[in-house]
């Protein structure tokens, strides 16, 4: 079943991307065209096949000792942020209506 425009709005909302009303119809066309091309995935016999989530088959958790080491200077780490106050990231209100 192809994605509807309201489906597109829902997944955009979940992805935190504000689409304009003008952008939604074209995005629906593009996504449906790509999803159509994924069809071979559904037509292969996968009975009894285990999924592989990672190309190095025998690699499991890689752990190391917990060590104290120098890390980024705080002011340097904050230097790419759009807004900073007292050595911390500054954000607008997290609750309210808009």
């Amino acid at each position, binding site marked *: 079943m192809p994605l509807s425009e309201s489906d597109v709005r829902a997944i955009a909302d979940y992805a935190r*991307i504000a689409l304009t009303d003008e952008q939604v119809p074209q995005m629906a066309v593009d996504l449906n065209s790509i999803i159509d091309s994924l069809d071979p995935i559904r037509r292969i016999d996968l009975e009894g096949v285990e*999924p592989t989530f990672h190309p190095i088959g025998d690699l499991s958790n890689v752990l190391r000792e917990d060590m104290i080491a120098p890390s980024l200077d705080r002011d340097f780490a904050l230097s*790419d942020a759009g807004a900073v106050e007292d050595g911390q990231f500054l954000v607008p209100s997290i609750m309210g209506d808009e």
Partner: protein
Amino acid sequence: MVVTRGDAPMPVDIAALSAAQIRAGIIAGRFSAHDVADAAYAVIATRDTDIHAFLELTPSLAYAAAERVDAAKEAGEELPSLAGVPVAFKDNMNQVGTKTTCGSKMLANYDSLFTATAVERMVDAGALPLGKLNMDEFAFGSSTETSFFGPTHNPWDLERVPGGSSGGSAAAVAGGLATITLGSDTGGSIRQPASFCGIVGYKPTYGLVSRYGIVAFGSSLDQVGPFGKTVEDVALATNALVGRDERDCTSQDCGTDFTANLHAGVRGMRIGVVTSMNDAPGVQPEVVAALHEAVENLKGLGAEVVEVDLPHITAAMSAYYVIGPCEAFSNLSRFDSVRYGYREPGCELLSSQESLSRAVGFGEEAKRRILLGSYLLSSGPYEEYYVPAQKVRTLITRDFVRAFGSVDVIISPTSPRAAFKFGEISDPATMYLSDLFTIAINIAGNGGMSLPVGLGRDTGLPVSVQLIGPQFRDENIFQAAAALETCYRIEHVAPMARPGAVSRVVEPVMTIGSPTPPATMKGGE
């Protein structure tokens, strides 16, 4: 390649020298590393206005590196393997002192906070970091047309794309602007642009090179690798890049010298040909012809050619366009408008600041992929597409393991066609077919190299083959590629970068013809 000789001081022609020749020239005192940097920036100044491979130049870093090389030479020290070699990095690789834009408005003002291990290892090997290279936005693309900073042009024909996503990396080498460049490859992003630009491009086996400091796209697919004019240059760069890095837990120890087998030949090697793959729909006749000629050449060199079957490879494309966007959706969630990246001004709520910043900061293709991932990871599609795609990965990996039970290397085309013109492919699903032959290798995690095999008989543009090795047996690829390379007399840079070329005069590629004859083929047609 033109080999320069003589003891007198001479101007350095970057396009004509291999990495080893540059290091040897510095050791012999024919020129200094400083001279090499001067020469590189001089050609960039004249040629890159047309090519637009570079997004940022870093002369202070390059000249500091040159000074270290020249001081070491002065002190009589042994010079490291890439001493004085001009290099440049795809702009998704962090390097302190540079921006790392990923070709996106999202990161247009982002200053690198740390340096990628791959970058660090090239500089530690004595290379001169010239600057950062253009790419498709966040590596989403096959043409470098999606860069926020404008496209890169193919040095062979400025009307055509250089391929992508590492288009700047390929064009810089083909245009004679740098000797070695680094790119990243998630579904073909090193090999396909190398093919379009007629140079060597190599994606190592997943786990050979650390990805620390590279902006992630598809974490189970991404790998960093080098571009160069010759197999030897790429082997030297690979030696510098590989090995365990505790900051990337997927990186593995590697004791291989990738230059060791370059002269071993292919006598007794078994080369696999996948008939179903090579006759896939949409593959241009000149690509098939060049592949057949390459296979004949390998036979002529003493290799045994064996047909192998990869029955599930037809599903690789769709598995990739499930796995890639899902991983990209997850990785690109880090762009939250708070810690770094574009921040829409004037928002009263954090939630609207985040979704507006992402709407404005990401381009169209990035948005498409993120939304596709958002959809495919939702309940329903997850069971219908995502889990099956990972099961298909199991089948494709088994296909390769089985095939490599009877062969040492598999050969295929790199790209179904030579470089296309700007705007020629606009439908996303058609654009994705550019990576038909390269994608399965990322899914299985094997290494693959694109090797130029002359000019297409119909287009006159570079055409390449892909050599694929078993996981962590990438030395097989280098052995076969170096042998096959000897069958061709190829100019390793585009006509515009060759001695005697008049800079900034662009001729239609079909009329360039002489003075450089097309690659001569042994055997074949």
